[in-house]
């Protein structure tokens, strides 16, 4: 569905070249659900904008839905759906009108566009608000309208750029449900970008971790966690002496990475839930009293931290809008 070869994009910022995407080689098969995960400014959105023909690559090639993104723009455009970071519906428009005109943009007949719009309005639970002015809709309703617009022509391939940014937890859950449903019903290939770890974790079958414009990992979420981060066991004790003895014992029993801070012992290991009971029995035999025991499953943040030495959250929780905006301004100025 997607094949890129050395895809690269530079922006000129104050006469300096910023390499937003550096030589990306990517292959996505039909029916896959892929998440591009990375901190703000990693090059996720820029990649998506190249794949959706919004900006041309500086070098390299990309074939999307069987067509070249530079030479065959309209072929690519007619085959993909795109749900951007903003709201696709004009604020002075009515939702249903926007859906119909979106259908007309893709060459649907008036009748087809109208019936397809009604279908999506029903599927996305927008019946009550579809004939209201878009500016009066809530954030969640607008987002559902965006999804409906992205699906109007039943694309084989759907791109979503930060689909859940700015949504409350309930609407995020709703969105994830919609995407899952879309795949179950239509076998649509989906590529989304996110900087929400849990989103990549729970939705995607394949996570591509991007940093500084490069792919640094590409695997299933569970494999990534297995390879790049273990489970965490945290034990606490009443006395530092107990903690020290427990740490020694843990090293012998599990042979894993063990660290002790005061009365706390932290263990990084695979399969912690299975190992913990055995460890506790051993500690009890040693006469060490454990005050509390906790198992933490690895998160995508641990994966990212292990891969880059930085936390994914360091960039803050701000959406990437500002990042993209800066690039584009400078590009125009350049």
């Amino acid at each position, binding site marked *: 569905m997607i094949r890129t070869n050395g895809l690269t994009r530079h922006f000129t910022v104050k006469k300096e070249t910023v390499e937003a995407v550096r030589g990306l080689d990517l292959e996505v098969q039909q029916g896959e659900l892929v998440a591009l995960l990375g901190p703000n400014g990693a090059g996720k959105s820029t990649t998506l*904008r190249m794949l*959706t*023909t*919004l*900006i041309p690559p500086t070098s390299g090639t990309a074939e999307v839905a069987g067509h070249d993104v530079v030479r065959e723009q*309209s072929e690519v*455009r*007619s*085959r*993909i759906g*795109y749900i*951007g*970071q*903003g*709201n*696709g*519906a*004009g*604020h*002075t*428009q*009515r939702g249903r*009108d*926007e859906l119909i*005109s*979106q259908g*007309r*943009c*893709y*060459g*649907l007949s008036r009748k*087809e566009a109208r019936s*397809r719009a009604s279908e999506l309005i029903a*599927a996305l*639970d927008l019946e009550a608000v579809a004939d209201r*002015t878009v500016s009066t809709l809530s954030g969640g309703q607008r987002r559902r309208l*965006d999804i409906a*617009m992205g699906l109007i*022509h*039943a*694309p*084989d391939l759907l791109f979503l750029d930060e689909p859940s940014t700015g949504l409350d937890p309930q609407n995020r859950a709703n969105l994830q449900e919609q995407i*899952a*449903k879309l795949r*179950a*019903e*239509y*076998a649509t290939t989906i590529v989304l970008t996110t900087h929400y770890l849990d989103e990549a974790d729970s939705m995607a079958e394949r996570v591509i971790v991007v940093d500084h414009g490069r792919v640094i990992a590409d695997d299933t979420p569970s494999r990534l966690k297995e390879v790049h981060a273990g489970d965490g066991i945290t034990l606490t004790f009443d006395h530092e002496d107990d903690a020290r003895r427990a740490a020694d014992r843990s090293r012998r029993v599990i042979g894993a990475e063990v660290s002790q801070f005061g009365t706390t012992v932290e263990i990084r290991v695979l399969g912690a839930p299975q190992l913990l009971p055995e460890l506790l029995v051993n500690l009890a035999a040693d006469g060490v009293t454990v005050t509390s025991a906790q198992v933490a499953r690895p998160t995508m943040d641990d994966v990212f931290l292990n891969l880059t030495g930085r936390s994914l959250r360091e960039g803050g929780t701000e959406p990437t809008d500002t990042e993209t*905006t800066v690039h*584009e*301004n400078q590009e*125009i100025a350049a």
Partner: protein
Amino acid sequence: MSATVMTPDAENDQARKSAQMSRRRPSLLQDTTTVFMRELRPVLHNPFSVVFSMIQPLVFLGLFGPLLSDFPGTGEGSALQWFVPGIVVMSCLFSGAFTGSNLLFELQTGAHERMLVTPLRRSALLIGRALKEIVPMVMQTVIIVAVCLPFDFELHLAGTVIAVLILAVMTIGIGALSYALALASKDQDWLFWTVQQTLLFPFLLLAGILLPIDDGPGWLRTLADINPLTYVVDASRLLFNGEIASTAVLQGAGAAAFLAALGLLVGIRSMRRSN
């Protein structure tokens, strides 16, 4: 909500739907119509919105117009007969120049980006928008004429219709230029408003819309001579007063066509580079 389990029927149905729906590219005319209708819809749903950009022309009509009776250079008869055509041009100019702000807003919300990813032709994105300007512009002209009829204003229908045609062509050009300015001002609202406000009044004054220029200093008359709006205003004055057969009318039509061509050229170029 329908069931999430996919049946073979649904699969076939989807494959068929997808094959039927997305593989036929509309013509330029269809693309333009799609954009035109989309732009027009909010105006039709809320016709009162066209009055918004008319406030200034109406203020000038009501509060400035009365000062012009017996003003030298405004002709023999009622001052309205001289002033109204200028106010109509002003209202076209304002609504055309203002319209880029709609695009500016859609550049920020993501609606424009969404349309850029569809197979719509870039040229249609601009032409459709620019053509839509004709509708509010005709509505505004009708309002201005209707407001003036009870007063000392004589309507010459044939000439007025021709004037509206010329003004429609001019408005397409002004609208297209305003869209080009909006595209250049992406993420910098202030740039759009600064340029727009800076240009609007000089063009307005130099076209002799508010006061006649004929008795002004030479340098000012020279500036007026190179302002295409001057010719449109002159032609409109003749046409609104029923004088159709005149070289000035032809010059006005030429100036309007020049503005439309310039606007579309610059506008389409900007739209093609838009991302």
